[in-house]
């Protein structure tokens, strides 16, 4: 088993190194062969292990690879914890990664950085796997930052593009703000538990331990466990793009589309959700933290959904949809429905990767036009893309029977069952979000695939269905988007799927009432047509239909009526303005002032050079005495002699 695990992690790394350093040497074809081969083997092994957990009764495994550092009694190690939660993530990551690898052959075929791109996405796969397979906080942080690094490299992949290199710096820095919290959280874990390995931490939690107080000021002290949970969650907010650290994700769309699917939809951005689920024993101890998680998640789910409605760039619509769906997962975490959050993570990984790759196919067909107002009527010209995107969109809006239905329905029901203070707000947000999800999804769908073609004749005449390397990943992702929910829903809800990997305390068990309805997929699906979420989704779909297909001219009227709201939305609630104009510019301005006033002015100008000048001035006066001219010295000698004689004379007189 250990050899398999090492192969899963290290093959993509080795392939990345080969393709990255020797890409020119081995050529383009071998670059993709090597990386795809490596990821395919990883994927097969990972799925095998996941199946082993699902059906074969595989036991959880906790192994140490090597000791990273030994400090007194503290041993910091690198190792794996393999349990159903990890294996699920491993299978999803490697599968989506493999699909994206294959798709990239088609998407990037004319790009001069072809080998480099394959190297990066393989490196990403390695980084993400070390993150999910870790058995300790140190390695978790390593993977956490490593995926951030690769995300940085990939957003800025087209390094000549000014918007891309702005976006990648922004993404890295915003994530670093989250990581700042994350690191303090890890420090807090060490402070409370005296170790950074998961197993002893969870063991102490299970046995009962004494929480510590972390003093913030003379009067205020925070509960250690709440501090840890909130700090760790700040890390999750950065990586999983939760308000107010969400601003980097829409801009990250400046990177090539395959990585938007892999990193900024399916895997990396879900790292925060995974991490909180992994830490469920800790979060269960702090209702304060859970309420924070609920509020942040609900706000993201709803308010980012609003923004999806007004976007015109096809990738940005999907990006805001991703933000909103991440909000749903975080709400599930806050409601203690960790397994449901992971469930939605899995289904979302399939259908959102599908939608992104579909969007990419549309973008290629449109010759890199991304504005959905300039598309239309593509459904007939690209039937396979159309069909797979329809499946993806229906899964996204939670149409009964599709994968997204099972996971989203569970989130809504679980939030309704939660009795935390913030649960009512969250319940409202996730319900209202359903309407907007359907609205923006089908607004885009109609504008792209239906309605009259609005592109110029030249482009229109060149639109054609994508090549097989592009279509096969779409189809292979459409399959789980359809059926994955159906297959695993009952086991996820009754807790048998994740087993001990997720811990929920007795009074937070929001899933118990769901076990009964979820035991029959068919019954649940049929019942799904009668529920409020379904009506809301249909409402959104119909609204989208009205404003795009039926009466497009109403859109203009509506925009004008709602101009105030529209301008707030157009500016993305002014987050970017505050961050860029005030915080970044203010920081640089403050640095300039510090430098000019304190470093150059006070310390150098006043103290260092000032004292040099003072000494210089004094010595300048003193120096005049030593002029080097003989007659000066003679004069002084004569005056001195006269003075001496005068003094002697005076003394003689006095004596």
């Amino acid at each position, binding site marked *: 088993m250990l050899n398999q695990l090492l192969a899963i992690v290290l093959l993509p790394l080795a392939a990345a190194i080969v393709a990255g350093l020797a890409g020119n040497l081995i050529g383009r074809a071998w670059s993709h062969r090597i990386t795809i081969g490596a990821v395919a083997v990883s994927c097969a092994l990972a799925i095998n292990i996941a199946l082993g957990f699902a059906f074969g009764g595989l036991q959880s495994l906790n192994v140490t690879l090597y000791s990273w550092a030994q400090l007194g009694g503290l041993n910091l190690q690198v190792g794996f914890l393999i349990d159903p939660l990890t294996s699920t993530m491993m299978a999803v990551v490697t599968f989506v990664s493999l699909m994206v690898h294959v798709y990239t052959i088609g998407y990037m075929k004319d790009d001069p950085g072809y080998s480099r791109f394959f190297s990066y996405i393989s490196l990403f796969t390695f980084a993400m796997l070390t993150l999910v397979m870790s058995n300790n906080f140190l390695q978790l942080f390593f993977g956490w930052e490593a995926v951030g690094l690769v995300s940085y490299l990939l957003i800025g992949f087209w390094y000549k593009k000014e918007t891309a290199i702005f976006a990648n710096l922004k993404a890295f820095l915003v994530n670093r703000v989250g990581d*700042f919290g994350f690191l303090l959280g890890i420090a807090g874990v060490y402070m409370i538990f005296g170790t950074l390995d998961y197993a002893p931490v969870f063991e102490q939690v299970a046995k009962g331990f004494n929480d510590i107080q972390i003093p913030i000021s003379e009067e205020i002290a925070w509960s250690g466990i709440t501090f840890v949970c909130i700090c760790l969650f700040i890390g999750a907010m950065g990586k999983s793009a939760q308000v107010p650290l969400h601003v980097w994700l829409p801009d990250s769309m400046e990177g090539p589309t395959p990585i938007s699917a892999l990193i900024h939809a399916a895997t990396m951005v879900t790292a925060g959700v995974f991490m909180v689920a992994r830490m469920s024993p800790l979060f269960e101890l702090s209702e304060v933290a859970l309420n924070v998680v609920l509020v942040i998640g609900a706000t993201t789910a709803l308010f980012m959904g609003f923004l999806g409605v007004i976007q015109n760039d096809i990738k940005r619509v999907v990006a805001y949809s991703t933000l909103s769906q991440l909000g749903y997962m975080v709400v599930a975490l806050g409601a203690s429905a960790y397994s449901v959050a992971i469930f939605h993570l899995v289904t979302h990984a399939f259908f959102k990767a599908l939608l992104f790759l579909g969007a990419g196919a549309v973008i290629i067909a449109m010759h890199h036009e991304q504005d959905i107002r300039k598309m239309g009527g593509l459904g007939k010209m690209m039937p396979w893309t159309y069909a797979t995107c329809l499946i993806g969109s229906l899964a996204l809006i939670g149409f009964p029977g599709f994968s997204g239905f099972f996971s989203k329905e569970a989130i809504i029901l679980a939030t309704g069952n939660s009795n935390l203070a913030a649960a009512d707000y969250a319940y409202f947000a996730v319900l209202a979000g359903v309407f907007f999800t359907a609205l923006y999804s089908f607004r885009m769908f109609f504008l792209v695939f239906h309605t009259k073609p609005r592109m110029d004749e030249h482009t229109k005449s060149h639109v054609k269905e994508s090549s097989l390397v592009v279509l096969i990943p779409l189809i292979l992702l459409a399959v789980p988007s359809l059926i994955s929910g159906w297959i695993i829903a009952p086991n996820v809800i009754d807790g048998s799927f994740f087993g001990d990997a997720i811990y929920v305390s007795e009074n937070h068990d929001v899933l118990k009432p769901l076990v009964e309805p979820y035991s029959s997929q068919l019954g649940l699906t049929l019942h799904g047509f009668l529920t409020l979420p379904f009506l809301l989704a249909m409402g959104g779909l119909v609204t989208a239909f009205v404003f795009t297909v039926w009466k497009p001219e109403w859109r203009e009227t509506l925009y004008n009526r709602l101009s105030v709201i529209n301008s707030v939305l157009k500016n993305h609630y002014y987050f970017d303005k505050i961050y860029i104009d005030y915080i970044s510019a203010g920081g*640089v301005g403050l640095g300039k002032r510090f430098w000019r006033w304190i470093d150059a002015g006070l*310390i150098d100008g006043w103290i260092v050079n000032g004292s040099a000048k003072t000494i210089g001035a004094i010595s300048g006066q003193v120096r005049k005495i030593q002029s080097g001219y003989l007659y000066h010295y003679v004069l002084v000698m004569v005056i001195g002699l006269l003075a001496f004689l005068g003094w002697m004379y005076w003394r003689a007189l006095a004596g």
Partner: protein
Amino acid sequence: MIEKLPILSLLIWLPVFGALLVLFGPGQKHRNISQWLSLLIAGATFLLSAWAVTAFDSSRYFLQFVEDTPWIESLNIRYSLGVDGFSLPLIVLTSLMTLIVVIASWNNVKMRSSHYLAGFLIMCGLMNGVFAATDSILFYVFWEAMLVPMFLIIGIWGGANRIYATLKFFIYTFFGSVFLLIALIYLGRQADSFDIFAMHQLVLPDLEVQKLLFFAFLISFAVKVPMWPVHTWLPDAHVEAPTGGSVILAAIMLKMGTYGFVRFMLPIVPDASMAMADVIIVLSLIAVVYIGFVALAQKDMKKLIAYSSIAHMGFVTLGLFISFSLVSGKHIDAAIMGIQGALVQMISHGFISGALFLCIGVLYDRMHSRDISDYGGVVNTMPKFAMFFMLFAMANAGLPGTSGFVGEFLVIIASLQVNFWIAALAGTTLIFAAAYTLWMFKRVMFGDVANEKVASLQDLRSREYIVMIVLAVMVLGFGFYPAPMLELMQPSVEHLIDCNLVSKLSPEGMCS
């Protein structure tokens, strides 16, 4: 046979006498000969230091490779050398960085290249002397002597404003050293010996005396580190220094200050250090936050990295001085973490800042400019260079997997055990270091080709490759597997905590 060699003496005098050969030998006229000779000497020195690591018994804190002969008998000053877990890694770092500077300067310095190389070799020997000396007066002699070659290197091979910079450098550090000498003479008379370890055993019952000694040490060491507010010589010196000078300055010379803290201040005046720890912690945090802001505003690449050095050295002083409160709170593991973190940071910063100055040197050799605004889109013409520069920039931003992460991580984790605000302010380095380093990287490397000069850039040459690869291996190696370095230091750190951080106000509890 090799076991019998006076290895530390060799590490000091081989480069010094070798340098004389470079200076006055046949190489004077023929650059090639002087270069190969320098390479040979620097290579031999490095191999000796590497051998010393393998022969070093890392399970003990005792001094090893000890040499001891009388030097000035009338004053009881001895020529005594020895290394422990604190000094040996620094000696290896010194020897390695000197070798790297010799390779990096290959055919690069046009004027009096044999003098230039000899300067670095002499400096290497003297710096090894600083780390190896166990007699405080011997230490002081090396400490002062090492300034001279650096003074000359900046003053002769430096940039336009080199005279101002080199004088500022010299006077600043010399000013500090005077107080060190007074303190050492006082301690020597008290202990009746100038042996540093005899000074460690000295009982200093009067806290006021300890505080005076503390301030004498502080002034001389803080200038070297440099700590805020006595840091303003560093950016000027770096900007004017030639590439090799900047590398040695950042990689080794700054460590002299923090080495002084570990070797003199903490063990000799622990009570005063403890009483004043809060002051040092505040100064360290100013270095992280305030200097972080200042670095953001820099337009000159070398200045930016110089300021970033100050911020990173703040972690060394922070890690050392939180140990007092951790030891008194019985968080021994955390105290070990803090001190180990500080020591790792010293070594790691040597590699990373050295590498970054070399990267800037690579660009400067081609473009003759350090201004960020003169660059843009260098990645288009120098993709291989860009890869290395990216790695070192990320290491400077403390990315896990690079050595830059290890020290900062340990110090931040340890400092939360002391106080939330210390950890929070220190943690802002995650944001600051990424912001100033990567923003610079973006403006210099990314984007479209900015001008014709950038368009005509040549990618790395073979000797530049060698240097980059060696440093990249170091940065990644210690990032993924710092355990060997930590093990080497561990006994000395534990000894420092067990014995030397104990109060010296009375003889009780001191270990012998």
